[in-house]
């Protein structure tokens, strides 16, 4: 069987079938279309202005590793003029996060970007290992999700950055759309497909990989021999998310456009939701000073629950930590 030629350049042997288009393409053409499509997404959404300080939320996993690499490439190729940083959260999970942070530290060297690591321990007074000791393995993903979100915002404030890029890819977003439908959470359905969101704080979060298929991210990392860490979180998996993922991968296997189609369905909900999000009254958390729509922000209400289970000592300790954070944020403004 003669080798199949690339359908873009007609010169070189094809090495990849693009899930999005079905095209057979060679390695060089793959790099070109992969990077250019991300650049186009960035330009269409008007994500940056020259001189922006931008943090890449770096976990050491495939998506954020490829994101850091590609952002560096595009920033240089198209003169975005961005000051790029790596921002990592140490959840305090021994045997998982300590290993992946080693990967991030290597990325820091490889991509020559400053790295900031913040831990749950220093922010909240609790590591995930200790939270799991306390609450068991059933709801720990809830804690981790809320804490991580806030921790990234606080880390960004700490390094003077008001824009965080995350490695969420098209598969992740389609999966979240499905999850929101399965939970009946229509309020989040449109929001989760937005390329940029601004949450309870003033810090923007964007997803330059919004339209990038996971398969292409993994192939890109493989061909470029990028250094990433891949292990399941030892406290995972969120079983419900696991079902959504399996379902999505099955759909994709029979019709690859399913991923983008689901994102488009979510986007159809987008406009009305924006209005709703803006209408929500904002206040600050009475415990830590973080922006919140309730008396206590989500992280602090979780912390209070944890501390009630722990007795008085931890409450005092937690309060001090909370105050530190509030002060830290104020200094940064």
């Amino acid at each position, binding site marked *: 069987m003669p080798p199949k030629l690339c359908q873009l350049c007609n010169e070189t042997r094809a090495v990849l079938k693009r899930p999005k288009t079905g095209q057979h393409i060679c390695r060089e053409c793959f790099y070109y279309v992969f990077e250019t499509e991300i650049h186009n997404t960035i330009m269409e959404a008007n994500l940056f202005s020259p001189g922006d300080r931008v943090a890449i939320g770096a976990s050491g996993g*495939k998506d954020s590793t490829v994101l850091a690499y590609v952002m560096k490439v595009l920033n240089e190729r198209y003169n975005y003029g961005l000051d790029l940083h790596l921002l990592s959260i140490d959840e305090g999970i021994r045997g998982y996060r300590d290993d992946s942070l080693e990967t991030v530290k290597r990325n820091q060297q490889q991509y020559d970007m400053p790295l900031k690591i913040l831990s749950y321990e220093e922010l909240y007074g609790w590591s995930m290992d200790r939270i799991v000791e306390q609450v068991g393995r059933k709801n720990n993903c809830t804690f981790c999700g809320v804490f991580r979100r806030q921790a990234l915002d606080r880390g960004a404030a700490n390094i003077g950055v008001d824009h965080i890029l995350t490695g969420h890819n098209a598969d992740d977003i389609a999966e979240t759309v499905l999850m929101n439908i399965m939970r009946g959470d229509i309020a989040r359905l449109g929001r989760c497909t937005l390329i940029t969101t601004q949450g309870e704080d003033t810090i923007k979060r964007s997803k330059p990989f919004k339209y990038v298929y996971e398969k292409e991210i993994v192939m890109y990392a493989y061909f470029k021999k990028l250094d990433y860490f*891949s*292990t399941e979180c030892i406290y995972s998996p969120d079983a419900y998310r696991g079902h959504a993922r399996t379902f999505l991968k099955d759909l994709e296997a029979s019709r690859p456009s399913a991923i983008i189609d689901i994102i488009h369905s979510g986007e159809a909900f987008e406009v009305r939701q924006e209005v709703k999000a803006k209408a929500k009254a904002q206040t600050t958390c009475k415990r830590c000073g973080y922006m919140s729509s309730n008396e206590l922000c989500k992280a602090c209400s979780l912390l209070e629950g944890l501390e009630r289970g722990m007795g008085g000592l931890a409450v005092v300790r937690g309060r001090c930590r909370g105050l530190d954070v509030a002060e830290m944020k104020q200094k940064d403004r």
Partner: protein
Amino acid sequence: MSTVSLKVEFSGGLELLFNNQRQIKLDLPAQVPSDSQTVVAAGGQADASEGRPADVRYLIHWLKDNRLKERPELFVENGTVRPGILVLINDTDWELEGEEEYVLENGDDIVFISTLHGG
């Protein structure tokens, strides 16, 4: 009986199912039973008279029966790799090479990468 020598690599977290081995070398019989029975074939004594040439489908069965250490459902589903596992044959997407039907040749390098682990 003739054999094909292969290099097989696991990454993206799949190596954890294979005793943390990222790379193995193995020899498969060039002809395998048409029902993909690997247990006998692994011993090398299969009756190959009614067989077919060893293909990637057979390799997947063989790996599951002989090298997989835990949670087989994370590797195989419905007789092939689970959706979300990418396969490369000599650094080319297996979707361009006939997927499970690809007939293995001596010296082939087969890579299995999981995309299912965190980003």
